[in-house]
């Protein structure tokens, strides 16, 4: 029991000090018929070596994206994480600290969160950002609920090009917390007229940038249309690196930006934990969910940081809180912040340009594959390819050859007949020309 410091003698001495005969006696308030007297039916303790061997064996049953040409995206992207990120986040003072409720002994966490809030605000072109949410999808659902509070309305319109998981997460929130969330009718390749759906009951319209299929659209006109009706524009971003190459959502008139920050600093990790980014116009700050760090001064007049505007939160406001959220995604936010600090302006813009260049190259090669059609006029590092056959089958066949070809749209939209042959393909700075050749050759051979 390598994690338990008490020795049998310690336990004996401590029980004597308490005045009870055994640890079991401390469970006297538990009804006797439900108090277990022996360990449950699970394996007994194991050494570090044994646990390591077992987990490693499970890991070996998977095909990791670093072991195969990989083109998967759809809201989770494989990027190169500088070595310094993981080294720094594993410092025990970051890894093993709690929420910074005692600011005198948590200035490290508070300062990096203040910097993180600023980085997110700058990147999204918004005025204020919070200290992170669980992930991009939950951030989007929280954004919808916040829009309902701000506008005192309860009708949410979602673009049909919002990531299906994000849509479903908003729908779940709507179903159980009492607001109507509807998806705009829209063909996958056609246009959707979101402005036409706005009415006096609409609290917000949620769009994705670049959208789920990779298209890049300017939402300035939609923002104006929404504001004219008294509704908010929520922009969801699933690939945050894109904002290194694209106009910020804030510059289009977004009122709330809800984004997934995984691409910076955080590994794919089979889907989590990730880090939700949440940025708003300053005038809405008191309706915002999640923790906020603010600058202040100490008794000696020195600048420092504290958690602030806590009266929005559940531990004070209880049933009147803006959200039930308590835990955020602190360590993932730190990884994001460190990666972005390493990149800086120059590095992020170069990284974004590099991603785009890789995608353009990949698209050019795929366009030459018989039966493959690129559907996008615009894209950043991910686009949609129409294949001649169902994409789910193609992807399975290529996986058997050690190629992770992309995300079949039908995996996320199984009931959408139009989606059957569509494949989302992403390229990042890690995508090599050899990877691209492998994908194109593979597609040729299975079609």
């Amino acid at each position, binding site marked *: 029991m390598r994690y338990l410091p008490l020795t049998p003698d310690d336990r004996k001495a401590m029980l004597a000090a308490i005045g009870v005969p055994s640890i079991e006696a401390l469970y006297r308030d538990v009804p006797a018929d439900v108090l277990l007297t022996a360990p449950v039916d*699970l394996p007994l303790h194991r050494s570090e070596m044994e646990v390591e061997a077992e987990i490693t064996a499970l890991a070996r049953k998977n095909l990791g994206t670093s072991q195969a040409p990989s083109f998967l995206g759809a809201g989770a992207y494989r990027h190169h994480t500088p070595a310094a990120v993981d080294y720094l986040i594993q410092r025990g003072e970051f890894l093993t600290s709690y929420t910074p409720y005692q600011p005198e002994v948590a200035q*490290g966490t508070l300062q990096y969160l203040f910097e993180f809030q600023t980085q997110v605000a700058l990147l999204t072109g918004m005025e204020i950002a919070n200290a992170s949410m669980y992930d991009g999808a939950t951030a989007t659902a929280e954004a919808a609920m916040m829009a309902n509070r701000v506008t005192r309305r309860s009708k949410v319109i979602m673009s049909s090009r919002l990531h299906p998981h994000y849509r479903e997460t908003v729908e779940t929130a709507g179903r159980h917390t009492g607001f109507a969330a509807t998806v705009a009718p829209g063909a996958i390749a056609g246009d959707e007229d979101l402005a036409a759906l706005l009415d006096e009951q609409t609290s917000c319209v949620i769009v994705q940038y670049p959208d789920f299929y990779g298209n890049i659209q300017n939402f300035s006109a939609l923002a104006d249309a929404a504001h004219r009706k008294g509704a908010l524009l929520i922009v969801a971003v699933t690939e945050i690196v894109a904002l290194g190459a694209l106009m910020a959502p804030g510059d289009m008139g977004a009122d709330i930006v809800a984004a997934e920050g995984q691409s910076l600093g955080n590994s794919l990790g089979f889907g989590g934990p990730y880090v939700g980014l949440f940025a708003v116009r300053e005038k809405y700050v008191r309706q915002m969910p999640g923790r906020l760090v603010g600058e202040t001064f100490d008794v000696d007049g020195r600048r420092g940081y504290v958690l602030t*505007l806590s009266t929005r939160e559940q531990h004070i406001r209880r049933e009147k809180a803006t959200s039930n959220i308590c835990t955020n995604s602190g360590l993932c936010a730190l990884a994001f912040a*460190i990666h972005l600090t390493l990149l800086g302006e120059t590095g992020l813009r170069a*990284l974004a340009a590099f991603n785009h260049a890789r995608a353009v190259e990949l698209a050019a090669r795929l366009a030459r594959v018989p039966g493959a059609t690129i559907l996008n006029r615009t894209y950043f590092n991910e686009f949609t390819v129409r294949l001649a056959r169902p994409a789910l089958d193609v992807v399975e066949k290529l996986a058997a050859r050690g190629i992770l070809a992309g995300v079949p749209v039908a995996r996320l939209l199984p009931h959408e007949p139009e989606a059957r042959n569509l494949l989302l393909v992403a390229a990042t700075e890690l995508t090599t020309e050899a990877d691209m050749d492998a994908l194109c050759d593979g597609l040729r051979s299975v079609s």
Partner: protein
Amino acid sequence: MKTVTGNRGLQIEEPLIFEVGEEGRSAVDLPPLPAHESRLGSCARKGSIGLPGLAEPQVVRHYTILSQKNYAIDMGPYPLGSCTMKHNPRLNEKMVRLPGLADLHPLQPISTVQGALALIDTLAHWLKVLTNMPAVAMPPAAGAHGELCGIMAIRSALLAKGDARRRILVPESAHGTNPATAAACGYVVDPVPADARGRVDIDAFKAKLGPDVAATMITNPNTCGLFENDIVALAEAIHGIGGYFYCDGANFNAIVGRVRPGDLGVDAMHINLHKTFSTPHGGGGPGAGPVVLSAALAPYAPVPYVVHGEQGFTLVEHDESGQTLGRMKAFHGQMGMFIRALCFMMSHGADGLRQASGDAVLNANYLLARLKEELSPAFPGTSMHEALFDDSFLDGTGVSTLDFAKAMIDEGYHPMTMYFPLVVRGALLMEPTESESKGSLDSFADTIIALARRAKAGDKDAFLAAPRLTPRRRLDETAAARKPVLRWRPPVAAEAAE
């Protein structure tokens, strides 16, 4: 003592990255950019973002210096009651970074992630056995997210019966997340008082029951660190009116391997993997909050979930029965936390988990025994995994719970949880966990006793001036809230905004 730099020995002053960065510098190099035609359309970025540029040595130094301003469980006891700060084994960190786990994309073909699904299934099995519950929903990202999951499942089950109910009974001692969750799902929160023993007042509870009560949310062991000894009767009472029993599992660490919530009549309970199973708190997250469900609630579990079929494991991402409460987040759950938690469980085993919960309770009661003469226990008798005191031992000293906590900081300790639970005046809630040795507890207790004696001896000023040795002292939270400064702004813009 004033220094030229403002630094004090190993305490180094550190500016914001925005104040040290310069344009044109970066700590990341990329190969030369290939020539390409832009497909960004009219949205290509024109203006700059405003991010600072630093080289790698500057970045490493910045975050290292910041880290040194934090207290951590790696440095000493972190007795935050209700938060469960226990040791974070480093094996778990190593395992989560293995190729084949860290680099798995959530939407890879199922055939390429069989090991990952097996791992989730194994963890689910452990959680079900430890709770004696038939099902577990893995997606929730944290405890509060798990509460939402549980209440949504209860709501779904009631609606399926055409039985819309309005009220949820929540003890006054509950975590704030409980009423916030119930209210978010449209329920009226009906508070239940605590009795003189720090437990739910069962008579008051029964008096509030009626056909419009959907559920109760009870923390057990409760936030006073006590086992709700009427728990089975409370469960029977709520079931008697057709309602459900949601258990807040924040304190499951006190009873793991000794009491199974399924035996108590629980219908749903979240398990904070970051508390009970020691995934690191990381300065406030990420967490993970799987929810065990009774047979009555299992059909309403959120998607996705893992099932084991003839072809191996599959992942059900779209529930065709139409019963699911829906999807709660993108992808499948906090996999990184699942791996860490499973490593923790396998390392301890059935025997070690039982020993760990026992040691946590033993440590808390030892602390209580050491401190009960000098401090004022909130309730008589032994407790579970926490020792709870009120502030009556400070009566007449002019020292508040907050002042006492700040004095602990100067002694090198992180304070306990203060002013929670709300049902105890000036509460001091200490949770040592099983990670502390007897020697560590003795040193801690000696320090607390000495501080209490100092307060009683009339040395109020020492407390009011504390902490004196930290990088910052008593920060002005009122000023922070009155005129919030929530981000850095360039000096020119900041002046213009004045």
